[in-house]
């Protein structure tokens, strides 16, 4: 399966030149760009591991692309990697864009567990299947 989280998962995988355009968009908006990775793509898994601190005060996408390269060297093809742009403006103070820039070579998907309660009601539990070769 293909996890379709993030802004651009229905497009063909982004090239580095593509990613650069979106990173520059964030920088020009004054947002801090953050690189995160995880082996648990559950949609409620909010806190992916941060690769480094969010990049505040940069003017150009180059340093983020450098960090992304470094992150890929370690996790590329094995974990999910995403970029996000954080807006500290009052009233937002949250993520304004987020998109995947790396996936494991094989995406094992999720297990949906149905627990029958009383009557016809079902409690659903969603769990990501472990990624091959990934630990923690």
């Amino acid at each position, binding site marked *: 399966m293909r996890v379709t989280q993030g802004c651009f998962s229905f497009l063909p995988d982004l090239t580095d030149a593509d990613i650069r355009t979106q990173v520059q968009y964030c920088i020009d908006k004054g947002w801090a760009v953050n690189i995160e990775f995880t082996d648990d793509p559950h949609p409620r898994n909010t806190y992916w591991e941060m690769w480094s601190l969010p990049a505040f005060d*940069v*003017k*150009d996408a*180059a*340093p983020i692309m*450098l960090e992304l390269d470094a992150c890929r060297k370690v996790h590329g093809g094995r974990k999910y990697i995403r970029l996000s742009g954080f807006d500290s403006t009052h009233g937002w103070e949250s993520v304004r864009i987020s998109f995947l820039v790396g996936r494991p070579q094989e995406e094992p998907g999720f297990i949906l567990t149905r627990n029958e309660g009383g009557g016809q009601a079902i409690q659903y539990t969603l769990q990501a299947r472990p990624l091959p070769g990934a630990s923690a």
Partner: protein
Amino acid sequence: MAEPLTPVPAPGETAIDLHKELAETQVAEVLDELDRELVGLAPVKTRIREIAALLVVDRVRRRMGLTAETPTLHMSFTGNPGTGKTTVALRMAEILYKLGYIRRGHLVSVTRDDLVGQYIGHTAPKTKEVLKKAMGGVLFIDEAYYLYRPENERDYGQEAIEILLQVMENQRDDLVVIFAGYADRMDKFFRANPGFRSRIAHHIDFPDYTDAELMAIGEMMLKSLSYHFDAGGAAAFRDYIAARRKQPHFANARSIRNALDRMRMRQANRHFAHPGLVTLDDLTTITAEDVRASRVFNQDATKPD
């Protein structure tokens, strides 16, 4: 490397009008502004024009497929304090941006303290942070030789130097570094760190200003603040420049600015000391009295004004 700003020429393009090429980049405007904004500095301005010409030609050559390499653009600006190095660096960033050699055109100005940390493990992130902020633009390192302290073999400056060298080589598309400082010390620094010397394409030497140039600078600064010298004031200021130059810590245009700040303060206090009304003329005029009260004129003075 940013995309060239002008469209790729039609196939078979054989003759190119370099002047038109220059006009399209609007670099000429930056050069003219540099002329207007900075008094004197003729050799510097000539060098900048030469570099700009080289870069325009290089751009055309790359477009025609004669070369593919990103040229090395790191520079060293040597000269005494107050000779216009920072101002020229700002304009240089603008020129490089307009020619498409850097993507953003901003200048990040730092000294040793911004790059070198206080404890082990502190320097690398600090240096990288600065480099990240400068990417897409120009990193201006003032008094760069302070990075190198051979007397202390465990100095963290060495770590910053190594990271700088690496980025200057590998990220030539992403930023241009300009080193600045006194000529003699810079020379020593480069001799001790040959890695820098080989990565620097352009050296520009900033001469001290002549007395006449400093006078012109002073008058320009006053004008921008809506002040002027009267005849006596101008004569006194000429004397001031000659005297100040002989004293320690002389810093060319910067000394002139500091002197003018003090003279404006004396002028203000002079008006308060004299009862009566002041006219518009009074408020805008710096007189001999304002200038000559400076300690620079006191032969025994050990400290500059």
